[in-house]
């Protein structure tokens, strides 16, 4: 039922977008638009929301101002419930990531992303395996050291039973090494704890470890993607993002990419969706967006309408199966 409704909605959105091709959207927000962040201040989602806010304001993409509203309570569940309860309110946009699939499974939160209105996928985020600059130099050495260690290696990450935790479990399953996973409140905390040698490794997003990497305090071992990150400008003294090998190259066959996507609440009109599709498409063409993608080593992607729905359904299945295999689904 829901599925059908959504497909209709998406087709309508697409039709509306085509109809209003030269960007004269029929609908426009009449009051400040809230961009809802499902994470704490300073996290990757927050930074991205602020980038969009700046891009929209500097390039005059919208008449009304955009307000960032942080709803990181309960590991982001607060934002999901907030969006769910705002049916029909087109002045709220959620900047979502994989929590939309994982939280309902791990914490039994009564939420389904199909109840919201997908607008567009704006980027894909990478995961990198990092260790302390004084630690093992390659993935092989790292795995060997982890296996040989008397007490399990400590792996830092953000939150429990989420993407970082899943990746850790998969590394255990693929290599046979044991890790104890330490869930911190934010990626920033996980980064500094790695620098202080309180953990042996973490699987942070590039943006979360960027500063300590540039300071030469941590080492990037491998990236959890099929191909290397494309950016070739030097980030540290000696390395660019492109210099980080993929984990598969290094013999660790684990891949994971995380979506960064925009959602409106449920029950909004096709014109409203069309306005935002157009808005975020324009955002992806701004220099602010492009610079941000490169600086944070994100994969620029833009999916909307049917393509997005197809992607979401597949991504949902993939995440659900990962969560099941890791044993993180609450009974």
């Amino acid at each position, binding site marked *: 039922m829901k599925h059908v409704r959504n497909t209709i909605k998406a087709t309508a959105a697409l039709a509306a977008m085509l109809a209003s091709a030269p960007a004269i959207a029929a609908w426009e927000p*009449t*009051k*400040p638009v*809230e961009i809802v962040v499902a994470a704490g201040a300073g996290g990757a989602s927050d930074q991205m929301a602020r980038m969009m806010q700046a891009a929209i304001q500097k390039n005059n993409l919208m008449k009304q*101002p955009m*307000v960032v*509203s942080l709803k990181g309570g309960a590991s982001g569940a607060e934002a999901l419930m907030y969006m769910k309860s705002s049916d029909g309110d087109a002045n709220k946009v959620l900047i979502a990531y994989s929590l939309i699939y994982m939280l309902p499974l791990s914490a039994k939160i009564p939420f389904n992303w199909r109840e919201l209105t997908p607008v567009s996928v704006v980027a894909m985020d990478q995961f990198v395996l990092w260790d302390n600059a004084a630690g093992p130099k390659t993935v092989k050495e790292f795995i060997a050291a982890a296996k040989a260690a008397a007490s399990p290696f400590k792996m830092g990450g953000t939150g429990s039973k989420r993407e970082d935790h899943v990746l850790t479990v998969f590394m255990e399953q693929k290599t046979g090494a044991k890790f*104890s996973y330490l869930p911190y409140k934010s990626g920033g905390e996980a980064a500094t704890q790695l620098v202080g040698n309180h953990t042996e490794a973490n699987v942070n997003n590039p943006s979360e470890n960027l500063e300590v990497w540039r300071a030469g305090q941590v080492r990037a071992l491998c990236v959890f993607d099929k191909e290397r990150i494309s950016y070739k400008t030097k980030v540290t003294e000696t390395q660019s993002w492109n210099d980080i090998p993929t984990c598969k190259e290094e013999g660790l066959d684990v891949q994971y990419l995380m979506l960064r996507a925009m959602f409106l609440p449920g029950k909004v009109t096709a014109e409203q969706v069309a306005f935002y599709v157009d808005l975020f498409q324009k955002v992806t063409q701004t220099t602010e967006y492009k610079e941000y993608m490169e600086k944070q080593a994100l994969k620029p992607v833009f999916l909307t309408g049917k393509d997005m729905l197809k992607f979401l359904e597949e991504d949902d299945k993939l995440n659900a199966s990962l969560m099941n295999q890791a044993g993180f689904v609450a009974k």
Partner: protein
Amino acid sequence: MSNTEIEIVVEDPTAPEADSPVVTSVRVVDVTVSLLLLVLAAVLGFDNWRTGIAWDSTGPQAGYFPFYLSIILAGASLYGLVAAFRSRKEARETFVTRAQLRRVMQVFVPTLLFCLAVQFLGLYVASFGLIAAFMRLVGRIALWKSLLTAFLFTAIMFLTFDVAFDVIMPKGPLERAMGR
């Protein structure tokens, strides 16, 4: 030396009389609070017990700390209950006199109504209403002064939060009619 000295005298015509009858003693309130805390401790303790209070291989489960905290809270409240029963001092101490209670209710009830009004009418309308009504009815201040103060204060708050800082406050029918 300081010839700029000015005497400030503020009289309070509605001040509570000193000889008003006592409504309740500190002991009664102390006992009530202890009992309420015991109930709270029991409810929270039960919920945490359901969540899991064991000590896993990786340290305590989610309910472990809150569960034992609720036991500590229950213990301290029980101790408080006994101490309050035995304390003669608390029995003699006045918690609140009738006149005082009336004055406290004069603020509490409007505040309660204000919170209700925020929910349905939006914050700005409610705050205009609260300030004007409170000044007029409780403070017996001239009607025009009350209305003007309420209007000015509400307007300043609106300009600061909604216009200058983009902090979105609860809105009601009036704001919707004005298109905000």
